[in-house]
């Protein structure tokens, strides 16, 4: 078990999300940066759907009430075991009583903590991912305890380490496909979407990332239709909203572009004021 000594800004339990419940309006949820969550799980030989902690910006302070094998990946948040700094993408063994803490954000904003065997919080609609109204909790609070499976008896001496100096998310270019309403717009308008640089707004969260610039004011409306994580919506005021993992399942704004899963992961590491641009891919 882990005990939360300090909460940090926003720490949630996430897995790959609630697949199969779009028909009743339940958002997918799951790790915003699925690539980093996958790396952390992979280093421990976990299943890719094992639950991890998604740690946002200002990390928590966590006491391990039993021994554990862990790995962190994604954002660099100045993590320490007791008083010793640790690095991303490496397996560490923790003893009972060790404290894992986080400090200043160096690169990216979402860090994933995986523990061998995965976190074992309640499973609702086949997923442990926190979401208000579905799980009983929407974020970790002080003094919460989080159970995990530990099979340290069987541990071998494998010390996984990925040697990547540059993170995949250190790019400002997001790969996009055409959205369902892309072709409603003129060639000039399309050019504006693809060639402009955009700024991440502070009104960005797990539901969606808003971009500050006004691109194309329009009066095109659509009948409400399905949307998915990565859908780029264009509001009548001409602003872009990129839907993320906790987004609603349906929407009424034109869907002009669609991010790849990799681009969603890259965007999930961007902070307010960061710049991004789109790179159009040939549709599948």
């Amino acid at each position, binding site marked *: 078990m882990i005990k939360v000594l300090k909460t940090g800004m926003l720490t949630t339990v996430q897995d790959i999300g609630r*697949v*199969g*419940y*779009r*028909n*009743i*309006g*339940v*958002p997918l949820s799951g790790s915003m940066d699925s690539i980093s969550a996958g790396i952390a799980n992979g280093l421990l030989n976990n299943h890719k759907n094992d639950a991890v902690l998604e740690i946002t910006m200002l990390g928590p302070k966590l006491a391990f009430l039993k021994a554990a094998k862990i790995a962190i990946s994604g954002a660099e948040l100045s993590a320490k075991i007791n008083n010793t700094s640790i690095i991303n993408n490496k397996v560490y063994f923790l003893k009972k009583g060790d404290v894992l803490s986080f400090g200043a954000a160096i690169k990216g904003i979402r860090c994933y903590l995986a523990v061998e065997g995965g976190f074992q919080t309640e499973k*609702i*609609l086949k997923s442990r991912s926190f979401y*208000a*109204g*579905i799980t009983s909790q929407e974020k970790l609070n002080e003094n919460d305890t989080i159970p995990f499976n530990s099979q340290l008896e069987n541990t071998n001496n494998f010390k996984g380490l990925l040697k990547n100096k540059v993170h995949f998310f250190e790019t400002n270019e997001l790969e996009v*496909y055409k*959205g*369902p309403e892309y072709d409603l717009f003129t060639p000039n308008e399309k050019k504006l979407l693809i060639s402009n640089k955009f700024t991440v707004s502070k009104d960005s969260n797990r539901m969606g990332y808003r971009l500050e610039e006004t691109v194309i004011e329009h009066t095109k409306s*659509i*009948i*409400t*239709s*399905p949307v*998915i994580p*990565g*859908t780029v919506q264009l509001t009548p005021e001409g602003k872009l909203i990129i839907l993320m993992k906790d987004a*609603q*399942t*349906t929407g009424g704004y034109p869907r002009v572009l*669609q*991010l*790849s*899963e990799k681009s969603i992961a890259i965007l999930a590491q961007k902070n307010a004021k960061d710049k991004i641009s789109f790179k159009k891919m040939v*549709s*599948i």
Partner: protein
Amino acid sequence: MNSNLGKYKLVFKPFGESGVLIEWPKKIDKNILTDIREFVHKNELKKIKYIIDINFVYSSLLIIYDNNLTTYKKIKNVLLKLYDKTDFVENKQRLLWNIPVCYNTKFGIDLQLLASEKKCTINDIIDLHSSINYTVYGIGFLPGFLYLGGLPEKLQYPRKSIPRLNVSKGAVAIGGDQTGVYPQNSPGGWNIIGKTPISIFDIDKVNPIEIQPGDEIKFYSISLMEFAEIEASFKNGFYNLKKVVLND
């Protein structure tokens, strides 16, 4: 029930790396809803293992597939053939659900505004709102939110320019040409005319929502006292929503 041969010209679009968006003619139409439902409930569609998620609303359907197991082109061809094929369709009964609503101004905080804007009495609004069978065109937006069609023009009214920060769960409201029930506390810009004491979406149940697209909803007016009674019996698990089978 056997479906007719593909009645509509469908438009297929790739949506992301693992989605197929299928568009019917872009309008709100009960025949289109029936056609989508029959397609979704075809037995062969249900047997396709690489389909992992489905949702539809109004005139479009999204199918999410496992892109490790198939490609967009392959699944598109499978779905096109399936649409044109006469296949056994599971006989999905449509139900009419009766939802209790307390239209007291304690809950219906925008009733007065609507009545004065529409130059009628509050009772006129209640009578009209509770006289209609609304069709469920889809579920989305929030877990358990029903997209309802059939709001009479007389009751249509634009949503508020500044949304309220917190609309309580169960609020019954009007936004533009739509009416609906807020399934959980959330911000919202619709005009609130009442409240239902029951939960349409209950996460503690194996099947959190029984109402399905294609079903119909009728609201009926209850007093403040009845609201309290139903709320209590619902909480204790003694209240069952009233439903009748619609004969198609």
